[in-house]
């Protein structure tokens, strides 16, 4: 797809995603029933879980495109990796702020060394390193390769980190949707959650495409500036 097409499609998806998000807010504030034990605070779940899903999707996409970049050396793959990593940072930050807010009420503490919480925090920092490596090389090609290496090692280390922090201890609510004997979440809550997951995913894809197009324009601009200078 051309940069222009990408920009159009990205804008379209982002608008759909934002409208979907407004609908999700309406659902989670006015429509869905209040959870019996946790009360209103549980409603943050409809933002937290989709943000978590999107962040992991984004980081996975970044690791995948990074590996493909090292193999094929197509600049577009690197652009996709940066765009995905930035999305992952944003949605990861949403997950890391909504989680403690809920935890303060449900667990009585903002922070605990709960496995999934810890894993996300570490993932966020791995990708912080991803951006720091990129921006601290004089030769941009080197920065791209280094960042790809960081993303791949990070992705391969994730199962290990997960196992180890799980071994350390667990307090997080257990899965309520994806499990062998079907979801245990009540119908209206499941509807709200799945709508929200869809809205977040569409929004992420829209932002991803916009960011990808922007990165393309940036590089074109750099190339032109270099030609003029030469």
């Amino acid at each position, binding site marked *: 797809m051309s940069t222009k097409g990408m920009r159009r499609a990205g804008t379209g998806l982002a608008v759909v995603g934002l409208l979907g998000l407004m609908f999700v807010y309406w659902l989670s504030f006015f429509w869905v029933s209040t959870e019996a034990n946790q009360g209103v605070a549980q409603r943050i779940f409809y933002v937290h879980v989709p943000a978590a899903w999107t962040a992991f999707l984004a980081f996975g996409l970044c690791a995948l495109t990074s590996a493909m970049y*090292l193999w094929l050396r197509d600049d577009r793959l690197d652009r996709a990796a940066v765009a995905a990593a930035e999305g992952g940072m944003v949605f990861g930050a949403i997950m890391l702020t909504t989680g403690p807010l809920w935890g303060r009420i449900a667990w009585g503490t903002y922070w605990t060394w709960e496995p999934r919480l*810890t894993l996300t925090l*570490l*993932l966020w*920092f*791995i990708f*912080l*390193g991803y951006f*720091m*490596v990129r921006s*601290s*090389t*004089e030769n941009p090609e*080197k920065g791209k*390769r*280094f960042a*790809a*290496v*960081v993303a*791949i*090692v*990070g992705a*391969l*280390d994730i199962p*290990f*980190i997960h*196992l*180890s*922090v799980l*071994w*350390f201890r667990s307090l997080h609510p257990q899965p309520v949707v994806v499990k062998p004997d079907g979801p245990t979440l009540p119908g209206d809550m499941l509807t709200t959650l799945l709508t929200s997951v869809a809205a977040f995913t569409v929004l992420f894809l829209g932002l991803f495409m916009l960011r990808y197009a922007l990165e393309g324009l940036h590089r074109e601009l750099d190339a032109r500036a270099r030609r003029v200078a030469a």
Partner: protein
Amino acid sequence: MTLYLSQVSAIVWKDLMLEFRTRERLAAMGAFAVLAGVLFNYSLDTARVAPQDVAAGLVWMTIVFGGLLGVGRTFHLEAQDGAMQGVLTSPAPKDAVYLGKTLANFALLFPVALLVLGVFTLFFGLDLGSSPGTLVLALALGALGFVALSTLFAAVSSETHMGETLLPILVFPLLVPMVIYGVGATGRILVGRPVEEVMGNVRMLAAFAVLALAVGAGLFRFVVED
């Protein structure tokens, strides 16, 4: 295979020889370990906290911080004199260079890890617990996993303008499994739990080290490409 091994050992010998002539990195890491022990002594109220209970964490953190001090300079000499070009244009494949560098770092860090254990035992009057052998095995496997990851990222950070400052940011999140399993095993042995209880941890440390070595050997070529 024999050729490959001789290429790896050539790199190891080169690095160790340089180190034994200057003794810079060993001296820095060793001094760091002892001084960290001194500072820990004043940062803990030993009347309230039993050193035996917290020593495992202190030992591993000292190894991690001290290790970064030495490993961060792995490529320093080569970068300074443009000698990396020479190493890379040698007929040795890139993964052999990586393995050589990593093993040389291990040969430096493992004695430092033992020194940390010895010094802390002396300073805090530790009792080495149920199985000193398993303790040393856990330290060795942890140190191997540590150098495997940090040597790869030392190659990355030495090529950035942030240099060694970047190294902890890149490796700390990745080292979490090593610290958790390492401290878990060490702590249990120090308080005298049976060895069978920590074998799971030791196996995870071994798996971590193997994975880190494989990943490093596979990805090093992309770091030192030009």
